[in-house]
């Protein structure tokens, strides 16, 4: 069974034991052993239906498949890596923040909100589900914030990485938010989470 191990805060070691792991294309910095690398195919190996959805929604995911015996060292742009354990639940994650996905996990595309129909890009999010481990990239140490019915959370979409649990995500486009957007652009909406779950953010804006 393939395993992920951290080597410092910014390098991930994928220990392969005859099975296959998917990782961000171009993130391999070194490897030992006998490992084959191949393109995970259209849509990052999520199957034909997911590939079709990616094609239509523009939620891109560039993954490669690594198979064999050995250790692969993965890193991307000096960003910090965090391991996330999934136990049958689903993580919705920014596709650009995915570094590696364990063998027993599935990826798909989910529709993230109604506003997507008009403004397009990025409102579809990548979901990862199943039992296993995945590695997520964060520009600076990742911050995990709990959401419960008593305290909803509002997040800057440029700092958002992922969320899990029973969360209802809404797009807030109120005046209060608009006054927060600088001249340099930024997203025209904020993300509001209600329900109970965990939201992961990074201390830098993309």
């Amino acid at each position, binding site marked *: 069974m393939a395993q992920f191990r951290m080597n410092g805060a910014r390098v991930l070691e994928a220990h392969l034991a005859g099975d296959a792991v998917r990782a961000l294309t171009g993130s391999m910095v070194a490897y030992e052993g006998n490992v084959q690398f191949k393109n995970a195919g259209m849509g990052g190996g999520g199957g034909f239906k997911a590939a079709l959805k990616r094609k239509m929604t523009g939620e891109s995911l560039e993954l490669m498949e690594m198979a064999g015996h050995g250790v692969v060292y993965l890193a991307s742009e000096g960003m910090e890596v965090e391991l996330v*354990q999934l136990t049958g639940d689903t993580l919705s994650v920014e596709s650009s923040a995915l570094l590696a996905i364990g063998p027993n996990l599935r990826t798909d595309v989910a529709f993230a909100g109604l506003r997507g129909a008009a403004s397009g890009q990025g409102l579809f999010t990548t979901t990862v589900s199943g039992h296993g481990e995945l590695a997520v990239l964060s520009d600076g140490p990742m*911050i*995990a914030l709990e959401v419960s019915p008593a305290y909803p959370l*509002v997040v800057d979409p440029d700092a958002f990485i992922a969320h899990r649990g029973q969360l209802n995500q809404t797009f807030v486009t109120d*005046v209060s938010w608009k006054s927060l957007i600088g001249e340099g652009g*930024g997203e025209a909406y904020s993300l509001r989470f209600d329900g109970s779950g965990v939201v992961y953010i990074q*201390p830098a804006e993309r």
Partner: protein
Amino acid sequence: MAPTILNPSTLPSDDNVNPYAFCIELRQPWFLRKGAMIAYYGQASFEGLAQTSLSAMVAARFSSPLYAQQWVVAQGVGKVVIGDRGYDINSYDLDAGNLTIRAANLLGFETGLELKQSIVPGFLTLVGTGKFLASSNGPVIFAEPPMRVDPEALLGWADCPSPSHHYDTGWMQGFLGSMAHAVLGVQSGEERQFDFTGAGTILFQSTEVPRPDPAYLAQLESQVTGLGVPGLQRLQTVIGQRLAAEQQH
């Protein structure tokens, strides 16, 4: 390895979450730079300086028309998480003091402080008592004058050191020499520093990645008015040369 899961009661109160993120416990109004907020819990509202109900307080405390577009007032009750490009964030307490800081690195301040534009372009001065937040690329280094600092690395200064430009002696000799021979365009890179004398503290960082500052541009634009036709023509040639040089990179 997984990060601890924080909620409104476990988030720090007016303290760092990690070196790159800070949590403000909002009880009284704060001035925040647009884009500095990355997440918040609670009943917080963010209003532009022109739209806020606290207009009298803003007019008294925020005495910089140049930067008014880039700031908001946050009020209400809640916890606000601040982040800036993954830079280190530090909070500072001023007690009836003054501190001047690079505008691009100032993220927020309490309304007990008064904001003024510094005479040095691109810098802002805070006067009074209260807390403020500033970011830096790497940890902040504190030092005492007399000293010279690279303009890119300068973060700010407190109390009363006197800032002036310093030009390398060798460079000045070369410049005067070239003046005598009427040759233009002497440039090497490290010939200019900021010189500090007097009593106080100087803050600097390892390096600054310059970030476009619309207010700095506006300030430069406003200084062009008195130049007249010959001055403007001269400026046009200089800008043309700079543009050509930039495009070669």
